């Protein structure tokens, strides 16, 4: 199978291949390649800044300019297609001078106070400045900082914006939201919000894709580290952490463990070293979600009219939930009432878990560590107080966790692995893959199959929802939409798996116009799912979601238990506390009503969450 694909690709290459030289090296490239992609494929580096494949191909920064023999002007290598016989010089004096001058022009409007910038070290502008050994600013700096609500989970520092338009395009083209707009014209162009609106008043889903795609420190999450440190330092406070599945994929990157095996235990050890009293695994509530949402689906299927084209939508992604709330409130009843794993855990920690450890729920500080910026808002939404108080107190992104580790001078490799705390510390492979697009669907199918057929499906029977055949890297970069059908004991289940909100909108349009009909739809706001989440670490110029997804699939494969209904601790929880899925108690703690509330109610971002 693989061989055939390769042969076909080879054949196509032969037809449309051109030969060119870059800096004297003769290379072959597809006639559709740009100079930049051809160079990269041959190990030749051309500095670039604004370019994002398929997202931002506007040759704005002119840092990647190269000289082409016989051509008077320089060309942007990111958008210029190769030609037969082309002779490209990436570092001719003219190209180097232009690169340098354009970098200087960018610096003239960029606050270069890099030592107090969170992006220092992963900033693409910084990298380009360093590469060119630029050690002084040529032009007077005219950067300016506009007012911003620093209580909002997404923070923009306009003085660092280099107006590359990546945020504008990712928000508009990939997420279909169009929050970021071009303000003013001419040399005064800057990135702003919809006219006369502050960020709380926009339809921002807080997916955070603009943060992870910003080349500089102009966009970031609200930093809640200091609040976590205060809770950890308070002797009266019992700190309970939960860690989302996708966080461990980024963790693996940080400790250089591409296998991702050792790191789960190390991660627990690090959190304990930071001072957390209990470290729980959100994979546990992912399994619980399958039990609740899966049963909701089965109940729905039983009474569903075969003519009814409307599916059940997953509800674990807060970016997606807020998108639907804002754009299609009429479809809210189709959203699963199950809370997200974070919020299920939040409700359990201050009820059942508090009972188990014999603690006063009021003294518990519940901290979740998420790959997500929207989770910072989800914790504050109405109804997320089933325990009688805020179920989740502090939400830290993966990036914040990594910063805490650095700030505490912990060397993770030096720590022995520790297990998650019981009795809510274990999860199956099904829960682990929640962190990647298609994972919730695959996990649900594993359990639904068992319930409906009375037998267990073979391992990886549903991997078709992973869509491994065509352009998976591409799908994880810019999102995708995959459809599948499964025969569950005679009942055909039509599914759709979506990542990226633009694809979600397409899916909704098809449903509303009758072009599509599904039973169950999984939507993740971020391309690639949570592994590509807006709270994940940024490695500039690299899309890490594909590799991170692999980490989660490998973890799944290594688990002895790979089906949510096999999670003994989950079953024990039902037995001891919740009774049954969808029981009254389960409904109260683990479900919520989706109401068309204001997604970014300004009142929720005024006090108490401000940075220190």
């Amino acid at each position, binding site marked *: 199978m693989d061989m055939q694909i390769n042969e076909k690709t080879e054949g196509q290459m032969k037809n449309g291949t051109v030969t060119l030289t870059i800096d004297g090296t003769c290379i072959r490239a597809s006639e559709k390649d740009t100079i930049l992609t051809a160079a990269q494929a041959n190990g030749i580096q051309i500095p670039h800044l604004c370019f994002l494949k398929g997202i931002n191909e*506007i*040759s*704005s*920064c*002119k840092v990647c*300019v190269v000289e082409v023999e016989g051509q*008077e*002007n*320089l060309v*942007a290598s990111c958008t210029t297609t190769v030609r037969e016989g082309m002779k490209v010089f990436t570092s001719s004096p*003219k190209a180097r*001078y*232009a690169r340098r*001058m*354009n970098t200087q*022009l*960018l610096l*003239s*409007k960029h606050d270069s106070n890099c030592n107090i910038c969170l992006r220092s070290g992963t900033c693409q502008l910084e990298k380009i400045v360093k590469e060119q050994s630029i050690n002084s600013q040529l*032009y007077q700096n005219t950067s300016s900082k506009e007012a911003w609500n620093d209580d909002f989970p997404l923070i923009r520092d306009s003085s660092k914006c280099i*107006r590359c*338009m990546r945020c504008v395009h990712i928000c508009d083209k990939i997420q279909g939201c169009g929050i970021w707009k*071009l303000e*003013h*014209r*001419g*040399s*005064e*162009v800057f990135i702003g919000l919809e006219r006369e609106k502050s960020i709380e008043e926009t339809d921002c889903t807080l997916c955070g894709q603009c943060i992870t795609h910003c080349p500089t420190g102009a966009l970031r999450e609200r930093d809640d580290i200091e609040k976590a440190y205060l809770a950890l330092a308070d002797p009266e406070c019992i700190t309970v952490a939960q860690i989302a599945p996708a966080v461990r994929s980024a963790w693996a990157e940080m400790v250089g463990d591409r296998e991702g095996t050792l790191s789960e235990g190390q991660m627990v050890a690090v959190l304990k070293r930071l001072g957390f009293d209990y470290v729980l695994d959100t994979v546990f509530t992912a399994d619980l979600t399958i039990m609740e949402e899966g049963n909701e689906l089965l109940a729905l299927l039983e009474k569903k009219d075969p003519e009814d084209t409307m599916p059940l939508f997953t509800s674990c992604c807060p970016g997606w939930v807020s998108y639907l709330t804002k754009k299609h409130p009429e479809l809210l009843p189709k959203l699963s009432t199950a809370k997200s794993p974070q919020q299920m855990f939040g409700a359990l920690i201050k009820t059942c878990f508090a009972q188990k450890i014999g603690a006063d729920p009021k003294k518990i500080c519940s901290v979740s560590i998420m790959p997500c910026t929207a989770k910072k808002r989800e914790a504050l939404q109405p109804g997320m107080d089933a325990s009688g108080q805020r179920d989740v107190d502090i939400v830290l992104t993966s990036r914040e966790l990594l910063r805490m580790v650095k700030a505490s001078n912990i060397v993770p490799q030096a720590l022995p692995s520790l297990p998650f705390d019981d009795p809510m510390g274990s999860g199956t492979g099904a829960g682990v893959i929640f962190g990647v697009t298609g994972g919730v669907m695959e996990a649900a199918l594993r359990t639904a199959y068992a319930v409906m057929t009375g037998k267990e499906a073979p391992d990886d029977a549903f991997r078709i929802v992973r869509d491994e055949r065509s352009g998976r890297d591409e799908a994880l970069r810019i999102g995708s939409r995959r459809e599948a059908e499964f025969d569950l004991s005679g009942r055909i289940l039509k599914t759709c798996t979506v990542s990226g909100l633009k694809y979600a909108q397409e899916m909704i349009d098809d449903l509303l116009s009758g072009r599509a009909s599904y039973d169950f739809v999984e939507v993740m706001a971020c391309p690639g799912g949570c592994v590509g989440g807006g709270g994940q670490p940024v490695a500039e110029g690299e899309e890490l979601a594909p590799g991170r997804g692999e980490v989660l699939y490998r973890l799944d494969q290594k688990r002895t238990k790979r089906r949510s209904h096999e999670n003994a601790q989950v079953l024990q929880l039902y037995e001891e506390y919740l009774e049954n899925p969808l029981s009254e108690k389960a409904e109260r703690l683990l479900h919520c009503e989706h109401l068309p509330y204001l997604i970014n109610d300004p009142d929720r971002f005024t006090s108490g969450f401000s940075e220190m």
Partner: protein
Amino acid sequence: MSKHAVIYKNETNEKTMKFLARFVKRVNSNPPGVCPLSVQLSFLQSARSQSCGKCVPCRDGLSRVEDMMRSIVEGRAGEKDLEDMVRLCHMIEDTADCAIGYEAARIVLESVEQFRDEYMSHIRDQRCLDEVGHTVPCITYCPAHVDVPNYIALIGEHRYADAINCIRIENPFPTACAFICEHPCEKKCRRDILDSPINIRGLKKFAVDSVAADQVKCPEALPATGKNIAVVGGGPSGLTAAYYLSLMGHHVVIFEQRDHLGGMLRYGIPNYRLPKDRLEQDINAILSTGNIEVRLNTEIPKDLSMQQIEAEYDAIYLAIGAQGGKHVDIPGADASGVYSAVDILGRIGRGDVPDFSGKRVVVIGGGNVAMDACRSAIRCKADEVTIVYRRRQVDMTALPSEIQGAIEEGVELLTMNAPRSIRVNEHNEVTGFEVQPQIVSAYVAGRPAVSDADLERRVIGCDVVLLAIGQDILSSPFSDYDVNPHRKTFETLNTTRLKSYEKIFAGGDCVFGPSTVIKAIGAGKVAALNIDSSLGYDHEIRGNIDYPKPKENDRTHIGRVHLTDRPARERKKNFEPVENGMTYDEAMQECRKCLRCDHFGCGGLQ
């Protein structure tokens, strides 16, 4: 709202374009003397506002160039800053995406080349070059520097005779110029900032139509000096020099090879544009000054040698014009039926009107002479008249009104076709004209060049070919007198004196090549003034006119009065004048629009 609409309409854009149209008018009527670097500065400001903001070199680069330019204009910059600006502009030229960016940089770079002295003056001396300073536009752009605001004011007070005398202080051809001047005075008229330039030539025509120029007495000549001055050539430039020298009290002898005075005004410009009887009025007035002796039918060196003139006269003004028609070097050019347009027009000027009945005429060329030739051919009853021109209609050097007039009278324009050969019969008579279609291509020396298109040649059937492809200066009899062997022009200082002769001066077409009558007049006057001072005098030409006090500006936007022509189907039958004059009301309205830049604004400083 739908994304798609049949008609693109955006109110803001439309309003902006309306404002820009006024901005364009302001730019078009840029007053003479504006610092060329401040022009660059405002240009950069506009360019920066046009940037879409996408790419860095344009978005951020142009505003830096603007900063640098401002520091140069304000005298805060050094030579290194200029170098830095040039380097930044090269970078913008190399990397900006679209014309808004790269062409802005190119323009700045070109300005640095063309105005290097100005840049250096700002950098080294913190000020503009000496010649930079505001002047009154109409007076400045008139090569004879006629006091336009004052004569308009005089017309406005119905003092037509005084207006004519006011014009004569600088230009003794008020009538000829009223008919055929190319009116560079109107080019930068400040009135264009409000509505449109004043129709200055039309007002002049109204004045000379109201009172004939030869009925207006010229000023008295100053006491005789006893000096004898020879003027070679009785055209506009020679007559102008003679007029002022005569007024200064010098004795002038005009040597004219033909049998009448007037030069190209008589023998080049057809009667329908400048009637001979009206030209006569100017000549009569010039001769009325008393000190001018005219020797017609006198050819040099046939009847008189230059050495003789040199020996007999205290000074000489050579104004021999450009009398020869250029020939083409193509097969068949010697056929019978091929004429130079200059020769044919000269014949017609003498009253020898050819009969082209039943003939098809092809005119080669795109200048005013070509238009005169083709419109004359129509009046010579030609069956068909076709202009063959190598370039596009917009590239024609003829006045647009002349081209329009020719088209109205039935002339066909065959543009984008280059002459290849003239087809003849066994009697060597013209039967056709072979042309090669052209394609317009890149600019060369400021205008788009053409080259052979990949299309078949074609033959246009014709019996007469008129060549209007330029004029030669017949300067060979004067070849010892600083004649440029290549261009055949006299080489003079800007005082009109020949480079190596103390008392010989030259001006008009024979110095700068075939050009406008007002330039020839301007040169004749400059020659007269310099001959006078070379003889040790410092005579001044005064009009002794009591000028009206300037009135307040009338700021109402008012349309420009355009002169109309007689209907084409009537006028093309004869050589009678084609243009109608202004009515009294029209003239008064046009007079009221004058902004009196000689008084308000910079004129008040002088």
